[in-house]
């Protein structure tokens, strides 16, 4: 449009097609509500990321160690067989004294203990790899087998394995919560757009009377839904940073380094998607009198 034809401070806003409807208080409120929901979702997934790193930081692969005092070395073969027979133990590997001593030496660092000195002090060690579908009594069975031969299980590893197991369950819950919140956000946006649609019912009716195609009538509202969702996602993502910075020092102690950038695309694109779905729900049944049927 030639601006010289248009007076100062006049901004023509033609309806339909790719032109957005005006932004009002209802849209702003919807944006805020969706932003808070997306922020909560982002915080939840940041928490999952932190928990995953904390567990994974101690033990990347899920392995349990069973120790047998050196004075009971004669029972080592029997213990190995007993451990192999525990259901859901995938494999049992005996760690040689030298390997254990080298690992201990590197872990302790520069404390003046030598490899040879350590070999004599360390117990016999078995490393157990677990099957993925662990059962509830797995760790008790391993403990029972170890204690039968005077050995012991590494309880800290068991605790971490249990935390890991709970985290898997929590991950499912987080996905479920994400889906429920996504649906709720879609409905909030849908409700907001429904109000806009009602306010613009005359305009929609007129456009249809003039032969407008359905995409032309609905597109502004779909764009608006996507924009509200996307903007809420962006705002929610920005508001995650104070959380990351605030908890950064404390998390560093736990060897956790949060990466909020990983949530940028899911929150912005997911927000846009949620908004678009809400808009599609809102515009699915926009009936006007005199619609061609």
């Amino acid at each position: 449009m030639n601006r010289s034809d248009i007076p100062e401070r006049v901004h023509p806003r033609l309806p339909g097609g790719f032109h957005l409807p005006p932004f009002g208080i209802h849209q702003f409120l919807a944006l805020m509500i969706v932003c808070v929901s997306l922020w909560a979702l982002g915080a939840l997934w940041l928490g999952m990321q932190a928990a995953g790193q904390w567990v994974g930081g101690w033990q990347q692969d899920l392995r349990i160690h069973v120790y047998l005092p050196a004075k009971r070395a004669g029972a080592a073969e029997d213990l190995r067989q007993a451990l192999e027979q525990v259901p859901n133990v995938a494999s049992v590997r005996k760690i040689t004294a030298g390997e254990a001593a080298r690992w201990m030496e590197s872990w302790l660092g520069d404390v003046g203990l030598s490899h040879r000195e350590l070999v004599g002090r360390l117990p016999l060690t078995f490393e157990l790899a677990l099957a993925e579908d662990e059962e509830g009594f797995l760790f008790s069975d391993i403990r029972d087998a170890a204690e039968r031969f005077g050995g012991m299980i590494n309880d800290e590893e068991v605790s971490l394995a249990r935390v890991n197991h709970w985290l898997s369950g929590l991950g499912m819950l987080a996905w479920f919560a994400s889906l429920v919140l996504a649906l709720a956000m879609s409905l909030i946006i849908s409700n907001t757009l429904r109000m806009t649609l009602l306010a613009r019912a005359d305009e929609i009716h007129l456009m249809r009377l003039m032969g407008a195609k359905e995409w032309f009538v609905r597109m502004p509202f779909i764009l608006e839904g996507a924009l509200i969702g996307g903007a809420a996602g962006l705002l929610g993502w920005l508001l995650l940073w104070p959380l990351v910075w605030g908890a950064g020092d404390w998390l560093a102690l736990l060897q956790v380094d949060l990466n909020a950038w990983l949530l940028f695309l899911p929150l912005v694109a997911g927000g846009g998607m949620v908004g678009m779905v809400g808009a599609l729900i809102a515009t699915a049944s926009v009936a006007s009198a005199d619609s061609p049927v």
Partner: protein
Amino acid sequence: MTAGAGAATVCTMANEQTLIRMQQVMLRYPTGKTALSGITLDIPRGQFVYLVGESGAGKSSLLRMFYGGVRPSSGKLSVQDTDMREAGESRIRELRRHTGIIFQDHRLLFSRTVFENVALPLRVQGWKTERLIPRVRKVLEYVGLEDRLWSYPEALSGGEQQRVAIARAMTAKPAVILADEPTGNLDIETARRVQDYLMDLNRQGTTVIMATHDLQLLESHPGRVIQLHAGVLVGGDA
């Protein structure tokens, strides 16, 4: 040319000249009310047609059928060579793009400027925005409102609002303008001015079909009169 060929040519020409053809059209609403019954008539292109009759006679229903707002329950209705009982949604949309509609309450969008209101039919047809202003300015000049391009409808008088509605109806150069009591809310003098515009559009070749109660207009601005009573044709067209 043989006699048969001559007759066929005459028939084809007659079809080309007929804008609306109705044969035994009946309209029954889902509520069970029969709005129109046994309507048979032709409306040639370029005519100025008045639909008259008491309230509830079926004038508005007839107009709605002409733009596909309702479909005939039985009979045959052809508008601009479109079978209105069989036409799909896209065909109806296409038909509406060649139809201007004026309402008694003008149905202007009060949150939008005169320009935005008048540009709406062209916007719907995908006109590029840079082409809109000259065209809208031209039609507003025609109805004497060129200086109101950027005003909002609430700043206009009733007569001016109805002239904006006329401008909106004519802006896409439709083949037919359907006017549902466009002068119903106006005083006599303003009604005559609005009627003058419609007559002038008709002289330029646009078919105008206008429902009205105002029998005085029929004398001052003569045209073909189709009279309805309780959903059936009465008078000369019956």
